[in-house]
Structure formats: structure tokens, C-alpha cells
């Protein structure tokens, strides 16, 4: 995985994001040229910081749930006893991905009502496939010599899983989580259409009142959050891989 940001730029971008979320008014001058006369440049109905925190919380909760279910499923279907369920689980996860998140929201709202829950479920279902696929790849492409050695030294099935298979598959699983998180950060914006407390609110408010400054600030915050998370997780993957190849230096 490539670096997208150097460490210096990464910190600068993070500092800028935090500054914007904490004191959006100080950036009003920059955004004012995008507004029509009389329109406020900064979205003030809800605090941007609260919205961003809630946005990230929803994504985090959904991703944790997807990770537990997807990795758990991948472990189950790669055990000798669960191997026959491999095709079935794959098509189930695929169906989760084929369903447009908007459709999931549309179905979930009548059942669960407006609010955060339908969004959580949509993100959860949407996040499953990349993590599952990657976990499956990671667990089925382990070096045969190493798995043979794990058997040969007398590890039990559980010991092989915990001490060898999962640690070796970890970078690939993390890559799946990273994909899933980034997609979720973007997808969570549409949760605002069913009254979830996310940054989508800013974008939608901007679109309905024809305020380009709001659309831009909502969109930019979402984009920067996604990029920073992507970059942070890539850095962790690199650190693990570097440790294994013996290079202790990490960026």
C-alpha cells in the first residue's frame, strides 16, 4: 500500500481539520465568496464538531460489528468443519454488497423508524464484504511451509489460528477493514436523509438551500476524515509488514 501523505503533511491536515471543527467561524472568510448574498458561510444549526464525532462514531460502531461478523465468518468457513459453507457465505456477503445502501435505508426505516439505527445497519451490511473477502484471502493463502510447520510442531487447531494464521493474515484483514471504513465514511452521509446525526446533514442542508459553502465544507470534512483514516490504517499495515521483513524503521 502506498503512502498518500508524508508524516508532516498528515499532521498538518489533521491540525487543519481539528481547527476547522473547533472554530469554524474563523474560516468563514474563506467560504464567504461561495455563498449567495445573505446566506451564512458556516453551518450553525448543529455544531460541526458534534456532527463529525457522531459521524465517526456511527462508522466505527458499524465497522467493528462488520469486522467481528466478517472475520468470524471467514474463520468459520476456513476451518475443516465449516468448509462446505464457504460458497454460501460468499454469496451472502456478495448480496450485502449488491444492495444499494439507499435501498437498505428505505427498507430499514419502516421497521426501525428514523434515526441512527437504519444507517448503522446499512453500513454494517455494506462493510461486511470487503472485510470478509480479505479475511478469506488472508486465511486461505498462508505459506504452506508455515502452516505445515505449525502442524508439525504440535499446535492445536485453536493455537494455529491464534498464533499463526490470524497474525499472518492480519495485514490483509486490515486492508479490508480500511476499504470498508473509507466506504462507510462516505456512505454515512446519506444516513442524514433518515435523520441520523452525520455530516451528511451539512451537505443536504446546503443542497436544499442552494448554499455551496455548506456543501463544500460538509464534503471536505468527510473527504479529509476518510483520507486520514485510510492513511492511518495503511501506516499500521506497513509497520506490521516492515517488522516482518526485518526493517524496524516505520513512517
Amino acid at each position, binding site marked *: 500500500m502506498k503512502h498518500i501523505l508524508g508524516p508532516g503533511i498528515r499532521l498538518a491536515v489533521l491540525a487543519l481539520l481539528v481547527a476547522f471543527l473547533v472554530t469554524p467561524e474563523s474560516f468563514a472568510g474563506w467560504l464567504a465568496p461561495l455563498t449567495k448574498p445573505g446566506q451564512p458561510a458556516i453551518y450553525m444549526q448543529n455544531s460541526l464538531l458534534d456532527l463529525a464525532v457522531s459521524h465517526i462514531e456511527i462508522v466505527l460502531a458499524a465497522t467493528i460489528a462488520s469486522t467481528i461478523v466478517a472475520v468470524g465468518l471467514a474463520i468459520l468457513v476456513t476451518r475443516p468443519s465449516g468448509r462446505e459453507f464457504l460458497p454460501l457465505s460468499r454469496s451472502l456477503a456478495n448480496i450485502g454488497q449488491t444492495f444499494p445502501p439507499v435501498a437498505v435505508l428505505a427498507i430499514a426505516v419502516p421497521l426501525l423508524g428514523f434515526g441512527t439505527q437504519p444507517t448503522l445497519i446499512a453500513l454494517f451490511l455494506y462493510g461486511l464484504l470487503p472485510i470478509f473477502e480479505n479475511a478469506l484471502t488472508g486465511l486461505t493463502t498462508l505459506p504452506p511451509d508455515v502452516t505445515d510447520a505449525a502442524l508439525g*510442531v504440535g*499446535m492445536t487447531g485453536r493455537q494455529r489460528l491464534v498464533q499463526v494464521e490470524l497474525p499472518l493474515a492480519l495485514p490483509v484483514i486490515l486492508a479490508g477493514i480500511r476499504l470498508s471504513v473509507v466506504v462507510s465514511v462516505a456512505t454515512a452521509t446519506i444516513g442524514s436523509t433518515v435523520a441520523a446525526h452525520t455530516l451528511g446533514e451539512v451537505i443536504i442542508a446546503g443542497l436544499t438551500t442552494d448554499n455551496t459553502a455548506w456543501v463544500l465544507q460538509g464534503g471536505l470534512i468527510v473527504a479529509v476524515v476518510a483520507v486520514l483514516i485510510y492513511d492511518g490504517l495503511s501506516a499500521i499495515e506497513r509497520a506490521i509488514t516492515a517488522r*516482518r521483513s526485518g526493517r524496524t524503521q516505520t513512517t
Partner: protein
Amino acid sequence: MIEIDDLTKVYDGTTVVDNVSLKVDEGEIAVIVGTSGSGKTTLLRMINRLIEPTAGRVRLNGLDTRDTPPYELRRRIGYAIQANGLFPHRTVAQNIGTVPQLLGWQRSKIDSRVDELLSLFQLEPGQFRNRMPAELSGGQQQRVGVARALAAAPKVLLMDEPYGALDPIIRAKAQDDLLTIQKQFKTTVVLVTHDMEEAIRLGDRIAVMDQGKLLQYATPEEIIAHPATPFVDELIGTGERPFRLLSLSTVGEIAHQGEAEGEPVAAAMSLRDAYAECLWSRRQTLPVADPSGTIIGMVTLRDLEQRAARPA
């Protein structure tokens, strides 16, 4: 002691190992040699139940291996493979300490055992303990692989083409190390190879396999002098026979009284190398020196020629 009785493995109607019986005495090195597809690796892997036999049984010190759960059995049997199969995410020390850790040894006992083994394999503990496998050369990885196999002091060590990936010089060194360590610990070793030279060098007994069948199981001398089938003969290499025979003994074993000219040869030198030395330096006789440099006698070209001839 390992006793293999009528062991058979059938995969989808194909017999891979066909009714093989052999016995390896305690402290002996048995080398299973054969071409690829001969069933030699399958035979080896049935000893620690990485492969379950279709028929027959294996006994370790008289006990049927089927009476022990596979993972417990394997913790008592050292296992080293060609590419060494080191765990890439664990340090050298963690790799070597794998089986002791599985057996629940105390931390301090594992640490001292790891250092002991590192020293034994000429890997300075302070320098190598915390390295990752990827930071080692092929020869070092191979040594760590064998050290891991020996960590819990198993009575039996299984090796599957352990030196296949090493260059000839490092391989010869690794073979010498194995012989030294095996003598020290009196480990019973079963080693699989396709290289007859390696088999003759290491084996107290050699099992020649072809198409799942055990063709001959005998000492190297016997295999060379009286190959059971044309295939065994072919594997030895007809033109190589006298030299293989010479490679089995050292000049120290046949040195006798007498004065000889020129540079002495070491008592540990194989007769084969001594023969080469005679030819190369145009000498009929070679003085033999012990490790301290004292001349203990001599060997003659005639002695060597006699030892190279087919035994009666």
C-alpha cells in the same frame, strides 16, 4: 526406537506408500532416499501423523502412535522441513521456543534453552535472538529451523529434505553439524532426501524407495556393495560406486605404520578425498596427522584401491 509395520497410504485408489516395514534403532540416523513421487515424504509424515496411514502402524519406543493425540505426539517429535517453515511474524527466539512454549515451560527455562541452542548452532544469542527470520541468510534460517525442531529435546527428529535449498558448501557444514549434534544428544533421526550422496554421508542405514515400495533397507556399505535392484544400483550411480565406498571411511581408520613424504592429511579426511589427494599430488603414500599435527602413520594408494573394490 521407531518401528514401522506394514504401513500403507492410498489416495483415491493410488497407492503412495505400499506396505512398508522398517525399524530405526535408538540413536541411529535412517535416511529415506528416492526420486520425487517415491512416497518417501508421505512415509515420513505418517510417523508424526501429519498424514494418517490407510493401513499399518507406527510404534515409538513400543507405543502405537495412534494412542496419543496428534498434537501431543508432534510436540515430542522434532520436525524440520526444507524451507524451514519458520514463523515469519516471530523472532528467532520465539521460533525456537515454540514447542517449549506449547509444553508450558517456564519463561526463564525457555530463554536459557533458546540461548543454548543458538550457541550450539554457532549463532551468537545476543545478536540473533531478536532478529526476524527474514533477516537471516538461508543457512542461518535452516539452522534456526533445526534448532526449533530440537528445542524440547525430542528423542526423535524427522527431517524432510532439510538441506535441499542450501548451496553445497553450507550444506556440507550443516550435515557435519547434524552429525555432531545427533551424536551429542543421541537423537534418533529419520531424514528424507533425493540425494544418494547425502544419504551415504549421513545414514547409518539407508531406505531406498521407489513408487511407494521399500526396495532396500540396509547400511550404506551393503547398499553400495549389494544393491537389491537395478534401480538402487542406478540411484547409487554405477560409475560412482568405488568412490561412494571410499567416502564411508576416514584415513584415520586405516592408517598404519610407515614413513611417507610430503604434506600430511588429517585423520578425519575421507578415503575418497585422500585418493583424490594421491592422484593430484602424484604420491603413492600419504602421511596421516591427528588434529594436533602429530604424524600417526600413513596410507598408501594401494590401500585405497583395495578399499574401493567391490567387497566380497
